[in-house]
């Protein structure tokens, strides 16, 4: 069965925030609300310095802590592995915001609902590809089915030995090349 995931190659990300704005636009978010946040990492000291920007967003974990703690079961996982929020059930208790170790859940000011990256889910399908992948100027993002070995994402994961950010925390489905 399909298991959607994403690969983010921080060796190509130039930190231009296009994905953040495109995501805000397509999800109808206000300017202060963003499903993607950016951690700037500096390693080493002058002059041997390695600096990178790491975009962090919902990892659509298979053992999603937010889904586990959500009392109203507003957070659910589709059979294709995409973690979504049923806006009709969420009471805004923010338990999922506390449980998410990546801190990527955002309260939508207009409705009080706690939302996150939805892989641009629309009418039963994720974005083809999601808007952040579509607008990435340096091609640092690949989206696809992790269960399909022929898919571009699986081959790229194999080629670059991409790993989730912190495999000990959750079974994340976003693989990073760093």
């Amino acid at each position, binding site marked *: 069965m399909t298991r959607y995931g994403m690969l983010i190659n*921080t*060796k*190509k*990300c*130039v*930190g*231009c*925030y*296009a994905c*953040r*704005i*495109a995501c*805000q*636009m*397509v999800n109808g978010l206000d*300017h*202060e609300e*963003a499903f993607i946040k*950016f951690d700037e990492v*500096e390693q*080493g*000291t*002058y*002059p041997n*310095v390695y*600096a*990178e*920007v790491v975009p962090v967003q919902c990892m659509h974990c298979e053992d999603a802590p937010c889904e586990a703690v959500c009392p109203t079961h507003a957070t659910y996982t589709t059979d294709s592995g995409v973690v979504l929020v049923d806006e009709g059930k969420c009471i805004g208790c923010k338990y999922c915001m506390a449980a998410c170790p990546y801190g990527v859940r955002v309260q939508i000011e207009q409705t009080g609902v706690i939302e996150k990256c939805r892989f641009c889910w629309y009418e039963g399908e994720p974005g083809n590809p999601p808007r952040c992948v*579509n*607008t*990435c*100027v*340096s*091609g*640092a993002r690949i989206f696809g089915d992790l269960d399909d070995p022929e898919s571009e994402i699986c081959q790229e994961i194999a080629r670059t030995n991409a790993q989730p950010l912190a495999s000990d925390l959750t079974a994340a489905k976003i693989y990073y090349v760093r």
Partner: protein
Amino acid sequence: MQEKEALMRCNPTRRTFLKGTAATAALAAVGTCSVTAWQAERAEAAGAKTQGASLCNGCSSKCGLVATTLDGRLWTVEGMEAHPYSKGTLCGRGHGTAQWAYSDGRLTQPMKRAEDGSFAPISWDDAFAEIGAKVQEILAEAGPEALAIVQDPRPSGKYYSKRFMNALGSANVYTHAAACNLSKESGIQEATGASNYSVDFPNTKMVVFIGRSYGDGIRPSSVKSLAGAADKGARVVIVDPRLNNTGIFATDWVPIKPGTDIALLLGIANVLVANDLYDHEFVEQFTVGFPEFAAQVAEYTPAWAEGVCDVPADTIVELAEALAAAAPACAIEPSWRAAFGCAYQNSFETARVVCAVNALLGCWGQKGGALITSSPKVGDVDPAKFPEVPKPTAKRVGDAEFPLALSGTGTNLAVLNGCNDGTVQGVFFYNSNAVQGYAQPAKWREALAKAKLVVTIDVQMSETALASDYVLPECTVLERMELPEFIGGKKHYVALRTPVIDRVHPETKSCDEIFVGLAEACGVGQYFPFTVEELADAQLATVGTSLDAVREAGIVELADPGFQFGTPAFKTPTEKFQFTSAKVAEAGLNPVIGYVPRLVEPAAGEFSLIGGKQGIHSHTMTLNLEALNAISREYQLERLWMAASDAAELGIADGDTVELSSSEASGRVAVKVTERLKPGVLFLPTHYGSTSPYLTRAQGFGLNMMDFIPLHLEPAVGSTMSQEVAVTVRKVED
């Protein structure tokens, strides 16, 4: 103001806003439609969705974009797949600037400045009439040479502003280049006869960036091609005091003292010549002046270079040898504004040295080297319909004093000097915020105050508009039609900016409508008897396509220019690559490509200050856009960068507030302490510190670098020396 309306039945003296007599039946109807009912009903009926192609106005790349509208309102924006610059993607600015049409920060009607400096709305007719009268007055008293226009070229802007000014008899047409890349392009022009070149990334083995960052000054296609080259294992060297956002693709970072890139390049040239690593065949057949250059370069040993630019001698030798090994599939990248676009006293010479090193490597026109490509030219249009404008007699102000400036751009600082000494009395600005960005704002305000007439055409009340007598509002990019945009390179294209949404504010006009209005008011209307559609169609016909074809497709590929690798024809007076240039000699500079020091040498305790672009902003234009402003605020992008070791010495921690001061100004800003910067250097992003109270989200947010820069013009070229300054920093005890 408001003309009197039909009287309302409600109360005879009351004025009505809504015209027409309301249908009494509908008024009395029960169960009128509430918002929630209307939204629900709209949910089912899929609205009228239309797609339109246009060109983004976020920066000068003018990437192709596809906008989707619903019921006439903008819904989503995406990159245009077929456009060579966007290739289906759109950077942050592209999404942000699409919001301009509906923004609350926009100019919506012409404004006129009162004596006390405040602005009041004025009708278009009155504005045109008053401006026309003032122009006639200036023409009568001082002649056409006293008029000038400064514009940041956009498809319609560059045609109409030139035509308007030439129709009035003045040759004073300038672009923004003097604050952008004038020195670089003039230098490349003197050496190669072309004003720019590009690196053949798909085949390159090694590329050296001098201060340029594809990751900050973003054009999606260049980021993609660099990513491709890095994937293929090309060596990417970044020569920059700051490890910029292109560092992610770099194999090595060469931190250098600001303003001394010329020394590093001459050191490399020395190694290539001294160790006989240069391309003899190219040098003998296709260049002039090599012997004089070789003699001069002999003294620029790596050891000497290390003393000037603080890059270790063996790094210079290693770089030279690596380049020689990779030649000809290697190149020094032409850069844009950062290091030698308009930065130091030696920017022009640095550009020439860059070309000289490429010549020594023999990479001109080679695979993986430096390519000079052609651009499509518009044929002649029917003079009956589009009357010829007579060539102005007088030479452009500033050309005499700055002969090396590109003829196509001139140096707009000649307008500043012209206003001061009275030779220029009437100035027009189109799509240009000269006051805030082209030189020190105080100096611009002082000069413009002396002019008799200053008119600014813009979408928002910028600092330049504040210094003007009249401000004419243009409609934003998605609401207007512009002339075709011709795109050069290995392949030729033509794209079109078509209106995608109806005009939000009826009182705003597009660039062509404004210039036609101005022309008629100034008595030269006879040169504008056409609409922008007619001219566009005529221009497109000369290159074998039509307005409807391009409007439909958004972009059309033109006849294949038949680009081939191989040494290009150098369009220089000597038809060869010029290590020495007669024109440079006439301008009183050393004709042979050599060393020129930087003007300001920071003393002990002082810092060099360098500027640079950020991926979400375009010079001083986009800071008030809420989508982009929110990012700058959330990630504190207005901060001054300081090297960790300097911060430790001064007892400054990350996030502290410091006072930055130079001979010209001082201001307070938060600090970002980082290892990505050479000690002794400070970096300030060049988008902040707006002083216009009309731009509420931008005013007072961060510092404007140009406030700190003394006004210097580069000799013979005339570009603003935007980084010739020494600054001091002091921690602010709160």
